[in-house]
């Protein structure tokens, strides 16, 4: 069945089916995925390939550790996945592909009620490759994307059509285009929680505050501020505790912006930050992922020295996110094809610095709770489910979504 499904090039629908590709094929999943991935590349080159392929590749891919994850395959490569926060009935994620030359897709994925499989709830075509994707916190049908045509960048707010279940090829409905950007757009941030009309988009040089009207389907620039010379912004995070504060990462620092004045309020100096993420549960806590030097936990009141340092990954640490519910649980994804789950409680060091020194050896003993290494390529996308905060979704570059539960590690806390 596996060989059939993975070598059946014409029937792509077949292998995209999560049941065929996901749960059912665990014992030989590794090889199947490699085949699938490379087949995809071949397919991308539009070269006719006969089905006469040697079925026995030299050596089988070694399964690395037992994995409890539930898999789901996208058709193309992909970088971004987002938790659909507004969907309170299901645990769902939304993800979009990154393919330069093919028709890109947005997948709405739902974890089945039993939690055993991932169901493709919706599949929509997207005009361009998606570099960033964020789900609207108050409407499950709305999300934002940052996309690129290869030469230029754009950002837009989309709405999933209401009747998509009945339509054959449902089209996404564009609510608004955030078209005031010139350079490379990096990300779009939604108001942290609740219904609000504010949006932030960050491109290489500017930070834009938008006011969005979903009904009238217009988005207007409220204010715009340049990051300053020689500061190339790369990503950002909206402070869930202080809605006037936004952290923007640039090459050598994290800048903190006050949205009321649109001025830089503060900054943390550190090199090559990829992603920053606020601790939802605890105020003033920010986690950053850095290319070479791993993960740092910062207390924004003490911006000179990180509260905690975690070793990160063998190669770059790409994404990092704090658990929305459990204190001190940090998830990081890296280009070494692993996702690491860390336990780094900051409370002890937060309240009494003297205690932290004494405790540090035991704490440093092993902050790494688990390393999920069952990926074939770099992992760029990472999202906790806000509905079931012990579940997270990860997305590796080869377009594979893996949803895992960290429940086994919660007991250790």
């Amino acid at each position, binding site marked *: 069945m596996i060989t059939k499904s993975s070598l059946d090039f014409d029937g792509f629908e077949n292998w995209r089916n999560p049941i065929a590709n996901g749960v059912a094929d665990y014992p030989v999943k590794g090889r199947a995925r490699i085949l699938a991935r*490379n087949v995809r590349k071949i397919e991308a080159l539009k070269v006719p390939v006969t089905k006469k392929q*040697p079925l026995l590749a*030299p050596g089988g891919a070694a399964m690395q550790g037992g994995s409890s994850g539930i898999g789901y395959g996208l058709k193309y490569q992909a970088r971004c996945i987002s938790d659909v926060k507004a969907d309170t009935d299901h645990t769902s994620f939304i993800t979009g592909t990154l393919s330069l030359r093919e028709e890109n897709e947005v997948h709405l994925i739902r974890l089945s009620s039993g939690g055993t499989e991932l169901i493709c709830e919706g599949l929509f075509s997207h005009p361009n490759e998606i570099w960033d994707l964020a789900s609207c916190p108050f409407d499950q049908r709305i999300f934002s994307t940052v996309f690129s045509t*290869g030469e230029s960048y754009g950002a837009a707010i989309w709405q999933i059509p209401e009747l998509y279940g009945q339509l054959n090829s449902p089209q996404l409905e564009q609510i608004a285009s955030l078209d005031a950007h010139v350079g490379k757009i990096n990300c779009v941030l939604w108001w942290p929680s609740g219904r609000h009309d504010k949006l932030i988009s960050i491109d290489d040089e500017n930070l834009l505050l938008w006011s969005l009207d979903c009904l009238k389907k217009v988005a207007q620039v409220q204010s715009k501020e340049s990051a300053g010379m020689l500061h190339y912004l790369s990503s950002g995070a909206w402070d869930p505790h202080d809605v006037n504060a936004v952290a923007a990462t640039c090459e050598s620092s994290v800048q903190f912006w006050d949205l009321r004045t649109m001025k830089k309020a503060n900054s943390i100096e550190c*090199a*090559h930050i990829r992603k920053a993420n606020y601790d939802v549960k605890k105020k003033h806590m920010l986690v950053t992922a850095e290319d*070479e030097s791993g993960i740092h936990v910062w207390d924004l009141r003490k911006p000179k020295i990180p509260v905690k340092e975690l070793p990160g990954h063998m*190669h770059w640490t790409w994404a990092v996110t704090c658990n929305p519910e459990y204190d001190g649980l940090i998830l990081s994804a890296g280009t070494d094809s692993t996702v690491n789950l860390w336990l780094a409680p900051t409370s002890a060091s937060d309240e009494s610095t003297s205690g932290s020194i004494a405790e540090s050896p035991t704490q440093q003993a092993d902050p790494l709770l688990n390393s999920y290494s069952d990926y*074939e390529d770099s992992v760029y996308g990472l999202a906790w489910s806000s509905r079931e905060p012990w579940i997270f979704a990860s997305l590796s570059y080869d377009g594979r979504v893996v949803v895992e539960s960290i429940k086994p590690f919660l007991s250790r806390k």
Partner: protein
Amino acid sequence: MGTDDVPLDDKAKRMRDLLSSFYSPDPSSTPNVSSKHGALDAINTNSFNADQYMNLLVQKSNLEALLQRHVEMAAEIKNLDTDLQMLVYENYNKFISATDAIKRMKSNIVGMEANMEQLLDKIMSVQSRSDGVNTSLFEKREHIEKLHRTRNLLRKVQFIYDLPARLGKCIKSEAYADAVKFYTGAMPIFKAYGDSSFQDCKRASEEAVAIIVKNLQRKLFSDSESIQARAEAAVLLKQLDFPVDSLKAKLLQKLEQSLGDLQLKTDELENVTVESTDPSKQGKVSDSIRSTPHEASVREFAEAICAYRVIFPDSEKQLITLAQDLVIKHFEMTEQYVKRRISSANLLGVLRTIWTDVLLMDEILCEAVLPDFSLEAAQVAVKQYVASTFTHLLQDISDALLKVNISPKEAAEEFPLQVALEASKKAVLQGSMDVLLDFRQLLDDDLGLLVKLRDFIIDWVQEGFQDFFRALDDRFLLLSGKNNSSSQDNGLTEGTQSEKVLAGLVLVLAQLSVFIEQTAIPRITEEIAASFSGGGVRGYENGPAFVPGEICRIFRSAGEKLLHHYINMSTQRVSTLLRKRFTTPNWVKHKEPREVHMFVDLFLQELEAVGSEVKQILPQGLLRKHRRSDSNGSTTSSRSNPLRDDKMSRSNTHRGRSQLLETHLAKLFKQKVEIFTKVEYTQESVVTTIVKLCLKSLQEFVRLQTFNRSGFQQIQLDIQFLRTPLKETVEDEAAIDFLLDEVIVAASERCLDPIPLEPPILDRLIQAKLAKSKEQNPIAS
């Protein structure tokens, strides 16, 4: 029954027992109470139970024995009866004689009373007569006594009138003792009548006494006088009610002053010792020579103290403090001295001097318990010495390490890192050995002071090593950590020159950690076990202070950390390079590739730099190019190489796309290559890891860009060029191939129009580049 053997003894014993039990009031004190259920000999005890005895007897004995027993018993009973009779007779006799004696006593007492009365009368008459004599003589005696008193008085007056002249005479003859005696004798009279009748006399004698006091004082302070004389003078002064305390204080001051002088001398001595020992090994000789004046002065001091003590016998307390002051000052000096770099020979010299001083002082002033006191002080000093020795060692090592930072600037040495590594290795091992040797000297010396401290020293040395290695580990991390932060700060702004050195230092530290773990610690452990075992003052539950296992663990992890740090630093440098390369140009509007981009040169340069650093420090790995993941590597290469050769030789009629396809197909059958393998302490492993990480970074950078055809071709060209030199430097060819392919794949995926360069063009461009670099090389070298 073997009772026949000792019938006589048995019998006598029983007899005696019976008698004693008869006479002793307490039956419990009889010896054989204990054998209550005792066998057959329980017959003589109080607790004898006839029934039980019978039972036992019947049970135990046969008829014959019973009969015999019966006969025996009958005989015994008969014996007992006769004994009893005899006793009764004897007692009766005694009683009769006692009655006789009492009768006689009664008759003798009767005539006594009359004699007594007669005696009393006679005594009474004697008494009345003696009273008569007394009263008749009373008056005359009274008169005589009065006359005698007057005469005495007159004599005293005479004495007082004569006193000044007498005193003068005494002064002349220096018989101060007499003078004082006279004066103190006259003192009460002067006190009573000095203001009226004897005014002149008093004045004159006081003047004389003043002279005496002055003379006495002079005598007391003059060192030329004998101690006896001075002591006498002091005593006399005291008798004259002169304020001796102030004198005492003055003298004490003088002593203290001389103490200060003594101290200074010690200082000089030490200075001299240092100077004389430093250049050559003549330390001991010069030490002894130098110590003679010192010893003399100490002896002098001791004598002074001795004298003082004789003069003021109640001054021990002050003297003790004085002596202790001396010791304290000595040890303060020593502590100062220890802070400087000294060998234990020097320390020994100083300690020896102090010890002789102490012994000298102890002879005179044993109450001061100077040896114990100085033992405590020495404990502190030696401990400090041990500590400071380790501090110096630590300093030495980090100095040796930090030389890396300086020497390359001078550019005199070819392999600065290697030199630094060797130097620091030597510093660690030789330094530790020297330190141990030094401490050995302390242990082996038979100086009384040190013998008592031996156990302590052993413990301190062990503890010292433990702490030293912990501190060393901290220092290593500090050195590398500092570099880390500074390189992060500087790396972006400044050039890479200074950084390189620091990265090298980290590598040196890593290798040094391994060296310490694998060589130095075992050696030191051995040495310690050989000469510093024992100790045990700390108590056994704590175990020995030096735990080599723990230290080894610390350094193993430190080594790994540092090695990773080094790799990180190196890859960071390359990363910056790559970042610049990939973020600067507009890849979508890239022009057709004309030559291999220069970042490749920079990249290779960095690798070369890493290679040269690594070559200096790390050992060469075993020839394991093909051993590692043998099946994996060889199969893939055998599979993919023909393909690639094929690809190369293929005519350009084929479209470039098919080449890419082949790359994909080749990959299809490759295993997932282990990119992130464990790093080993070998040149190849480290270089390979760095190259792998860099290539992975390259891939990630490529994935972030979008290329047009020319951009893609540029990447393809650069990567193709990299292939050969990288494979030359790296042991894991398969992984490198895989990663390079991955880069090309990533570029093609991110390309709007992925048409690769035709192999001939690719080849030509590479050849051109090679020729160019060849051209440059001779010029450069």
